[in-house]
């Protein structure tokens, strides 16, 4: 029922709305960017992949040279907002809290609604289709309480999408880069390099190398899941498990956390670090990384100590 294809069509509709509002506002390069994004969501499955690639390059050029600019959307005056607050009271919280609570409820309970070859939620993407369902009912509730017309919902989502701007494209572009790295054999090259140059006899040195290697390679790839196979095959298994006889379950558990310390430090993990900075309208796009850095570095040190004490 709530398949990924349906959600892609919803996304296309939302992107087309942004394109419409920026076109009306005479910001043509922005309109081109959001229209292309919507087109890939609507018709991507029917286009030759090379054409999709070409559109992505076009979008990247428009965004990369500052062609995606924020819009001017009319918001209510503070006085009007406060009178709304007075009128609506705690009802304002209901649609906001519906999103997380209904998502969890759908993913745990409604996921069991299914028949022969039919199910309410997409079994392979339970969380996303649950989020889609929750967001739909939350929009209805928000429209009911605020007594706004449905067009206003499109205007508001466009306002926030334009506030995020080019950062919207970044997570997907980085995941694409990760897949290209795989095709080009970046992982193999790194693990060949590490096995060539690292010959560590002391277990503490080996542990530190594995932990820092996980963090550093995650910083480069932006994703601990991409770093784990490479560094574990290159350093973890040959040195820690086979040479020094460490416990592989402990190595894996703490090793992945070292990768997460790297995730907290890198602009390559755009959806956790750069997109929130855009969403919160921070002038410094690295502000979230700077807030995370002390925690991440201290924790990396603790991880090295824990791994050394627990593994052997």
């Amino acid at each position, binding site marked *: 029922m709530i398949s990924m294809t349906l959600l892609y069509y919803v996304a296309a509709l939302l992107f087309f709305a942004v394109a419409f509002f920026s076109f009306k506002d005479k910001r043509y390069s922005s309109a081109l960017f959001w229209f292309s994004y919507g087109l890939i969501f609507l018709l991507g499955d029917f286009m030759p992949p090379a054409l999709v690639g070409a559109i992505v390059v076009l979008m990247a050029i428009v965004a990369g040279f500052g062609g995606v600019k924020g819009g001017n959307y009319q918001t209510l005056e503070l006085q009007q907002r406060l009178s709304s607050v007075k009128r609506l009271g705690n009802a304002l919280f209901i649609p906001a809290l519906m999103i997380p609570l209904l998502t969890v409820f759908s993913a745990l309970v409604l996921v069991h609604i299914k028949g022969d070859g039919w199910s309410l939620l997409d079994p392979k993407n339970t*969380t996303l289709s649950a989020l889609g369902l929750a967001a739909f009912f939350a929009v209805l509730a928000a429209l009911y309480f605020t007594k706004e017309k449905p067009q206003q919902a499109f205007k508001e989502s466009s306002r926030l999408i334009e506030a995020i701007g080019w950062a919207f494209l970044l997570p997907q572009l980085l995941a694409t880069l990760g897949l290209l790295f795989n095709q080009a054999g970046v992982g193999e*090259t790194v693990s060949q390099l590490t096995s060539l140059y690292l010959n560590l006899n002391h277990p503490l040195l080996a542990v530190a190398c594995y932990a820092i290697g996980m963090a550093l390679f995650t910083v480069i790839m932006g994703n601990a899941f991409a770093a784990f196979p490479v560094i574990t095959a290159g350093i973890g298994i040959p040195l820690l498990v086979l040479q020094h006889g460490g416990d592989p379950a402990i190595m894996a558990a703490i090793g992945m956390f070292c990768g997460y310390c790297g995730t907290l430090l890198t602009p390559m993990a755009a959806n956790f670090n750069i997109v929130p900075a855009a969403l919160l309208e921070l002038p410094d796009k690295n502000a979230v990384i700077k807030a995370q850095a002390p*925690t991440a570095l201290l924790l990396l040190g603790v991880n090295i100590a824990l791994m050394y004490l627990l593994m052997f």
Partner: protein
Amino acid sequence: MTDFSLWPLLGIAVVMLGFLLKFNPVLVVTVAAFATGMAVKMPILTWLESLGTAFLKTRNLPLILLLPLAVIGLLERHGLREKAQNWIQQIKAATTGRLLLVYLALRESTAAAGLTSLGGHPQMVRPLLSPMAEAAFEQKHHSLPDKIKYKIRAMSAATDNIGLFFGEDIFVAFGAIILMHTFLRESGIETEPLHIALWGIPTALAAFLIHGTRLLRFDAYLARQLQQQLKQEQRHD
């Protein structure tokens, strides 16, 4: 002296250089993708094809950010942030640091129970958490300069990330645990998924202690920043 090619690493060099020189990230990543393709002598059409295929495969990524925006926007238009601020100001003991500490505890423990979608930047941090954290500061100090506002917002986003990362990984059905288990099995090493999850607990606790301590000291840090700023402004007057 290596008997294998280092060319596949060209893309990584481009990324590091691009970010260091502060070019637009979208541009950096595209050039890195292009350099990687050229370095392994991929024909341009094949490169466009793998770019397009990968982009189509990752269309699920923006959804989690995109889907809640209409609701959040509508509610913001009618004063959700102001309402959240009023609400927190009724709780006299609330400070920015304590509020974020409570959020960290909730976010990490619910994520450890597999309930990762209870938080998140679009649905929790922007509409509720950061307005409350800002209001708690303003209530106490009767002023909220932009510089401090941005620090509070960044710390709110950071707290959501840290709670999520170090909570979800001790939930046994989480994808990362399965990934580690499968990878080790393929390398000829047998582990129990439950063991991997359990051995994550010491780090999860350490993460809470370290970030929690930083949050408790955050109030004093912000107060010092405000003092400094006020002094500077006086000097300018």
